[in-house]
């Protein structure tokens, strides 16, 4: 084992450019975890609420003023009422969608993470696998849903598989980017104390990859949500996506938009969840 030679020499150029510090990840990836502007005063809160009231009230007013019928565009009040009135009927479907999302995402994320951790240890294998991963990332997994339904029926199975297929590769490519960020000085530090390969993985590589892993998990979860809803629209009699097709076919637009509202809330919650995790565990990078 030529362990000693694995560490390149540190040229002054490198230390001068501060490249060896592990801070070289582009802003676009990690801006999600930057501390953000933050709300400072009551005046700011008031302004934010005022703008929201003006926008929502303005839409309501305009729709009423021009007598736009409900089946074309329901007003915010009608949507809010539909959400309140129909929620007991929609709630179980929210539950089904969450089951698909959580189980599909967990399966996909775990497989993606393990594959990323393993594959980055073998650069040659990585080169061989890369094109297939790219295909998995770029193919909309929704395209496979009719096929999956044919094979697995109209239950949870095809949807969970589709969600896993959508989320897994997203998690994997981002996590792999994280694991590839080898900082030889930090690995040398660990090795100087006689660290094992496993210790180096858990104490250096994994924490170093964590910010990118979180980005991958967030994108994977959002893609999983899209795919779950899409799969529900393709076939099967349950889930929020199914509600969308049902309500639109019955021209129940307030209820339709109530479901859309729930879906956007779900997406925002996913974002906020990973944002908070990132802030807690990966803020050292921002």
């Amino acid at each position, binding site marked *: 084992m*030529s*362990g*000693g*030679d694995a*560490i390149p*020499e*540190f*040229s*002054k150029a490198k*230390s*001068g450019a*501060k490249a*060896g*510090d*592990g*801070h070289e990840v582009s802003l676009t990836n990690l801006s999600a975890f930057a501390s953000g502007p933050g709300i400072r005063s009551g005046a700011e809160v008031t302004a934010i609420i005022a703008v929201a009231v003006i926008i929502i009230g303005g839409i309501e007013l305009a729709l009423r003023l021009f007598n736009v019928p409900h089946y074309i565009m329901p007003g915010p009040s009608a949507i809010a009422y539909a959400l309140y009135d129909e929620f007991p009927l929609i709630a179980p479907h929210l539950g089904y969608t969450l089951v698909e999302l959580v189980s599909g995402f967990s399966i996909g994320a775990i497989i993606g993470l393990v594959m990323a951790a393993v594959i980055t240890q073998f650069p040659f294998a990585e080169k061989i696998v890369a094109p297939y991963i790219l295909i998995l990332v770029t193919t909309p997994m929704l395209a496979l849903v009719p096929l999956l339904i044919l094979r697995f029926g109209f239950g949870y199975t095809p949807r969970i598989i589709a969600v896993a297929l959508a989320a897994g590769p997203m998690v994997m490519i981002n996590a792999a980017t994280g694991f590839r960020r080898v900082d030889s*000085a*930090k690995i*040398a*530090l*660990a*090795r*100087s*104390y*006689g*660290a094992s390969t496993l*210790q180096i993985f858990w*104490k*250096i590589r994994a*924490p*170093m990859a*964590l910010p990118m892993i979180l980005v991958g998990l967030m994108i994977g979860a959002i893609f999983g949500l899209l795919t779950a809803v899409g799969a529900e629209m393709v076939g099967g009699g349950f889930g929020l996506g199914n509600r969308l097709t049902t309500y639109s076919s019955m021209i129940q637009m307030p209820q339709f938009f109530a479901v859309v509202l729930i879906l956007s809330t779900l997406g925002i919650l996913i974002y906020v969840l990973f944002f908070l995790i990132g802030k807690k*565990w*990966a803020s*050292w*990078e921002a």
Partner: protein
Amino acid sequence: MNAGSAKTPKLGVHDATKIYHTASGDLLALDRCSLDVHANEIVSIVGPSGCGKTTLLWSMSGLHRLTSGTIRLDGKEITGPHPDIGIVFQEANLLPWRNLDANIHFPFEIKGEKPDRAWIAHLVNRVGLDGFGGKFPRELSGGMQQRAAIVRALALKPSVLLMDEPFGALDSFTREEMNRLVEEIWLDTKTTIVFITHSVEEAIFLSDRVVVLSARPGRVAKEYRVPFARPRSLEIMATKEVFDLTITIKMDIVGERVRPKARERGTAEIVRIRP
């Protein structure tokens, strides 16, 4: 070099040769470089950039394997990282996701040992980092970070401390402060120190001996004793002796940059001087 008469050096480098195999061909970084560092000594290694100083230090640490030649610690050959050798890296090389306490405890964690709290507290106090344990590296100045790195390197009580251009990225005032700190720590612990630097002044201030490496491939070109008593004051740096020594060493380094052809013709031409 002759065994028998001289006592065993703390760290003995014998015929160290290192060849890097790169895409553009083999690169001879060190060529039969030999050097003894005795116990409780501070030895600085200076030389033109790219002369293999860092390679030599990393080989001493056991992190780099030599192509040929040996490194001996207390007479025993070392082939890998050794717990008795501490390293201070270029820039602080702290782990940014850990606070200072966790960074300093890192060596114990890897070793699976309980941290020696009394010793750590003593070191932290010595370098003036009391009360900063909960801070993260990014919250601290470069000098503070390097102080923490020194504590970390000394945490396992190594008998040899290797320092790889540790203060190269610091401003000159912080640098002088850090140099005094290294001397204080040495007076306190008498740890054998090998110090790589590209600052001749820093080398003279700190060292008992300054070793000048030749341009690549690196070999020991010259060696100078620095006879001043410790603790050394900044005033010493303004004396004629130090000034002469500084110039001599700088000329050694610059001389290595004289084009060989020009030297033959007797019209030495200086290619580039870096202060």
